[in-house]
């Protein structure tokens, strides 16, 4: 186990050094000198919408104003967003993550309902949490699986939910928060069906309804919108993950930019701007995640 960890660390250091030599991400002084902050956004739920607004779009726009620079939204997707930030391709093998190749850097930061995951933390700097989330198991309304009743013990509920999957096919999306590798679903005899027709998580429910699989993973921010949009066509079986946090992500060599973002985040939580954004884009989120928002306040 120790040898394996050392190997992973060596691979990570090698990837990091390579990244340092071949590409240089912009930190705060460079962005201020350039006069422009490039926001990497992914069309996802109400975080970044197709029309260019959204919770994270407004949040980052405010950050650009706070820095006194111009704001540019650069669309990306979950498969390419880290490559667009670091100029390197991400290769995961088990718990180890390596960066390979040279690609153009298209943005300075990611803010798009981006889940904080351990493997991502190996290669990115995260801000303080910007939003809560959780991943659920859903099924079509006509599925014979009955939703769990739910208890005070989340770990038990997750176990009960996973047990219900059985041998049925499960729709997942890799490299996103719906990646089965994040939740120990691989190698469990589950028929995993990777959704590749789109890199947009918003399409998971329509894909489930089009019989792409028997079951699907779905994150709570999408769930809150989809339960209104597709009411009566699918049901929530139970939780697959613990409560997660979403945050803005920065290159490892942009600590000043990350710190400036945290200062900005604290400021808007004090002056009420943050609450206004939550109310505007996720009006029900406060009731769904009371503990998270109590902590923010």
């Amino acid at each position, binding site marked *: 186990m120790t040898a394996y960890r050392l190997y992973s660390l060596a691979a990570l250091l090698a990837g990091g050094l390579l990244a340092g030599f071949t590409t240089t991400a912009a930190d705060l002084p460079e962005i201020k000198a350039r006069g422009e902050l490039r926001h990497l956004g992914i069309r996802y739920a109400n975080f970044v919408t197709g029309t260019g607004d959204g919770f994270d779009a407004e949040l980052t726009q405010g950050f650009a104003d706070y820095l006194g620079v111009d704001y540019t939204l650069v669309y990306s997707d979950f498969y390419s967003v880290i490559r667009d930030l670091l100029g390197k391709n991400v290769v995961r093998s088990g718990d180890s993550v390596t960066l390979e190749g040279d690609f153009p850097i298209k943005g300075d930061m990611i803010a798009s309902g981006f889940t904080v995951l351990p493997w991502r933390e190996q290669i990115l700097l995260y801000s303080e949490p910007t939003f809560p989330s959780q991943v659920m198991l859903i099924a079509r309304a006509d599925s014979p699986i009955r*939703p769990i009743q739910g208890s005070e013990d989340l770990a038990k*509920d997750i176990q009960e939910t996973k047990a219900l999957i059985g041998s049925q096919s499960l729709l997942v999306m890799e490299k996103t928060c719906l990646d089965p590798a994040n939740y120990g679903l691989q190698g469990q005899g589950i028929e995993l069906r990777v959704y590749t027709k789109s890199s947009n998580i918003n399409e998971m429910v329509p894909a489930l309804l089009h019989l792409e699989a028997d079951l699907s993973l779905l994150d*709570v921010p999408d769930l809150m919108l989809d*339960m209104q949009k597709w*009411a*009566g066509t699918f*049901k929530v079986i*139970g939780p697959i993950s613990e409560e997660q946090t979403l945050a803005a992500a920065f290159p490892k060599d942009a600590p000043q930019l990350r710190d400036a973002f945290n200062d900005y985040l604290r400021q808007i939580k004090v002056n009420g701007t943050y609450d206004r954004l939550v109310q505007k884009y996720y*009006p*029900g989120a406060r009731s769904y995640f009371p503990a998270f928002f109590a902590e923010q306040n």
Partner: protein
Amino acid sequence: MTSWPKRRHGWLVLAAAAFSLYLALLLANAYQSNGQLRAAAEMRLFAEAQQTATLMSDFLADQESFVLDLAEVQSIETFLVNKALGMSMRYGLNANLSAIEESFRRKLTQKRLLGAPVYERLLYFDEEGLLIVDTNPGHPIDAPISGHDPEAKLIIDEENGKILAAAPVDYHGQPHGTVITVSSLDLLSRYLTSSTANLGFWQFLITKTGRVLTDDSRTGLGGAPSPTLAGIPPAKLIPIGERPKLAMTPLAADFDLVLRIPVAHTELSVITALPASLLYGHITSQRVLYFASSVPPILLLSALWISRMRQRTQRLEADVRESNRDRAELKDRNDALTAEIVRRQTLERQLRESEERYRMYIEHAPEGIFVADNLGRFVDANPSACAMVGYSRSELLRMTVTDLSPPDQVSVYLAAFEQILANGRHELEITLRRKEGHDIVGSLRAITLPGDFVMGFCTDITARKLAEEQIHNLAYFDPLTELPNRRLLLDRLRQTMVVSSRHQEYGALLMIDLDHFKDLNDTQGHDIGDRLLTEVARRLTASVRREDTVARLGGDEYVIVAGELGTDESGAALLAEQIAEQIHCALGRPYMLEEGRLTYHSSASVGVTLFCGQEIGVELLLKQADVALYQAKYAGRNTIRFFNPDMQAAIDARATLETALRRAMNSDELSLYFQPQVDRDGRVIGAEALLRWLPSDAEPISPTRFIPLAEETGLIIPIGLWVLEQACAQLGAWQADASTRELVLSINVSACQFHQPDFVVQVQETIAEFGIDATHLKLELTESLVLDRIDQVIARMHMLKDLGVSFSLDDFGTGYSSLSYLKRLPIDQVKIDQSFVRDLAHDQNDAAIVRAVLAMSRSLGLNVIAEGVETAEQFDFLLSHGCEQFQGYLFGKPAPIDDFPAKVIGVG
């Protein structure tokens, strides 16, 4: 004026009579009106109180209606749908409850009464009476409500001062809880006219037990029920004094009358108490009426006197105003006159200065400027004009415009002159005959001047026209036979095919090759060979129709294009055969090539192919004729062969090539090779990126094979974009390295790609994507590309130049080579085509073209690069004639980037 006293007297009598009558009527009606006023006041009071009760009733009905709507909101239905699917409250349904709460909160803010929210709280109990949605959570519910009520109802909670409205939630016919709204009872007091202290009356609300729900400070009941108030007969005005129990209440101290109006559909009533004096007012006495009737005559008399005084004042004021207006008008006119004089003086001065300026300009203008009257007689000319035509100014002023014309151009002059007069302006190129008799060509721009004069601005372009003509002839005609060369042949063939397409007529392409010509050349020398070629050209021209084209492709190969052979294929084939036979016979006759020598006998092989329309391309048609010629040769020479459709196999091979090219694009078989470009000292200054097709399982395929195919099939668009991206990526790599930062990379852009509507945007985005300095990117355009839609091309070139991109005109010399076009194009560089460079040392014609191109480019300030430089001899020739940049095998073959010499050599 004399009749005025009489008329005034008459008016006064009439007015006195009218007012007497008026007073009599007034007094008679006074008593009757008094009674009617009392009744009207009571009715108005009754109506106002009734309106207040109705408004309250409507308000409460609105609450019932609102709660019923609330029970049917979409978010509740969504919750129930999901609940029916068995979802747990903890995972899933809580999202719906959040949505219900959010929609309740929106409703709370929407419903307002006089600026204040109507509802304090909205609640949703499930069917088991459990509170699951509350817009004010964490606060106790002290009202008597529960989630079990099966029907909608309205409750007046007297104890807590609340109005509660409840409605059951129904889903698929089953009860699923209750929605309840809570609002304050105080809202009802807003409908009461309660600012009573100032108005003198008082309104309040009571229940069926007589408990006062609103301000009861004057009843003295202290919130206790009062049967006395409850017992007041409804909708009837009651004097308090007539009811002993009422007379004993504190109400009797301030009020005389009381009215109770029930609120419909409720057990509430509105009580209005008021003093009688407020309702009826004071009774008017007769003495006051009599006194009042004497006031109108006094007022009338006063009015008459004031009116007269006013008329006098008005007349006086009018006189004063008239006098002031006359004076102001006089002053304005005087000011305007002074301003006009100043303006005219200024204008005259400006006019004089302007005339002097223009005179100076005309005298010193480099252009020749002529001015003539409407009969064409010269009335002025500047020194440049006199120098241009060789006449003095005094001589010119005795001449007319046609005196400068060569005799055969007089009608052209007159027509142009008429056109200038008719249109006001005209531009043309015109031939002028100088005094000593030489003709020159001028570019004339003429305009009409006021007074029917014509002014012409003329520039001598004789030298430019001669250069153009020379280049044109060199480019389009074979100097030996004076027949059209391959370039002109292709143009004529395209035109013939267009005409053929329009009339659906067949045409024929004949390819002729002299048998054993090489033997003659080798044994008798090139002079004799050239004589034979010239004679063959003469015989061919004599054998065909005037409208047919005879061209020499090179060597002993000739081509004839014959159009208009009819719409019937077999008939056309017959005619083509006749033409071929005539040619065959004509060329078969003996030749006298040199005096005193024996005649020479030659024969020819002829390949014929038919065409109709533009179904197949020009190159393919030539290929078909070539194939037919090959067949004729193969059949033993001295014969005629038509193109055999069986040879379609060759065309099929082309289709196969197209399929392979499409596959090649997706399997990374295309790659870029880079050929260095060097300066006079041989230092690498850049490269041309050249596309190569390297199939993994076959030999490399020549660009001359697949690029025309890509252009025909449109594949050149994605390929061109790929080339642009690869080139920008390479430039990015070079610019990251100090030793290669200054290298310039040229790429070829096809016409098809350049004319794409989004081409400029594509270039801009690609440059931005790779973050390169665009001043090191050069686009090579062909002459044919820029001459097609030239205005659009120039506009696009300017847009690209704004990005920093530069342009090179590729294959220069093979097209029109027009100086006038070159001057308009924003190009930076001219590239001499390798076909001219190849035979530079041996072909005087090519050498002349190269010299002309270099001289012309130098005069236009353009940089020149020669491509295809393979020998030191070619390099020396180009160097000695001023060429600055070079490309060719002498300096390096096209090679993959890893073999590019810049890696090793670098740049200075």
